């Protein structure tokens, strides 16, 4: 497939700032503001290295997800995330960050949002800017890919 041109950052920011903010509010409540700024600064740092303008929403949601994980870690000692499994001291979605590193961005975002953050498919679809079916498909093919990879190693 021909790569899609990367839009100017202003356009990208304008199209994604509200959905990303809403997503971070759901995950972090009042802590969303710092995470929001960090998400877009990180996106801005990585922006010149992007090769393809497809799935930019999935990409920025993945960044936001990772930052939310870090925030959640910081908040945990104050008991802010009591519902989180604590076996190894990390929330379950933190595990998914590095594991899914090599997935295509859309599948990675779908997997992290579904299995890390337990988001329903309609919200994942909104996050990815795709249909609910496409979100379901991205998550399942991401999981399939992870399974195949774990067999190989």
């Amino acid at each position, binding site marked *: 497939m021909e790569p899609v041109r*990367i*839009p*100017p*950052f*202003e*356009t990208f*920011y304008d199209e994604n*700032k*509200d959905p990303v*903010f*809403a997503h971070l*509010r759901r995950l972090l409540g009042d802590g969303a*503001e710092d995470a*929001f*700024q960090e998400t*877009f*600064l990180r996106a*801005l*740092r990585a*922006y*010149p290295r992007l090769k393809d303008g497809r799935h930019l929403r999935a990409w920025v949601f993945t960044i936001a997800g990772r930052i939310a994980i870090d925030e959640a870690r910081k908040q945990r000692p104050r008991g802010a995330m009591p519902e989180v499994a604590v076996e190894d001291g990390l929330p379950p979605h933190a595990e998914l960050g590095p594991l899914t590193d090599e997935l295509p961005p859309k599948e990675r975002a779908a997997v992290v949002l579904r299995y890390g953050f337990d988001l329903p498919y309609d919200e994942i679809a909104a996050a990815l800017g795709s249909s609910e079916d496409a979100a379901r498909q991205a998550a399942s093919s991401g999981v399939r890919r992870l399974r195949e990879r774990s067999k190989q190693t």
Partner: protein
Amino acid sequence: MNTVPTGLDGRFRAAAAAEGLLDVAYDVVESPVGDLFVGVSNRGLCVISYDTDAELQVERLARGFGSRVLRSPRPVEPTRRQLDEYFEGRRHQFDLDVDLRLARDFGRAVLEELGRVPFGEVTTYGALAARAGKPRAARAVGTIMNRNPIPIVLPCHRVVGADGSLVGYAGGLERKQQLLRLEGALLA
């Protein structure tokens, strides 16, 4: 509650510029000759335009300077202040770095010469061509003036025809008259 609060949006835009992450920061500046779209790169002022269609300008800047173009008022502040002073008659010379990296060869030489035409004076297309090293290139200079990326600061309004007629101006002849009148180069 699901839209980004204005304060947070502003903090992000300021931080992006403060961390040096932008190819171009831009803002719209009000002036007596209408709103001006102003863009500043890491090397200096790179665009002033009478056309404030942000979408079009942002696309253009991204193609020329890199994709990290963002509205961020802080880096534009010195330009805004000097433009204000100019329009209030308190400044006759701009003290700003300009980024002419998109201009090549003769075009660049002409724009650099243009920057030396003093406040309140006029020159001709032919004279400017000569000063840039090509006395017969008056017509080419006309085209270069028409595409001047940084009008007002690079004063293409001070360039007129050999017979003293105003000839043309990318921002419209009315603006050219207005600027020359402000500088006292044109009577009433």
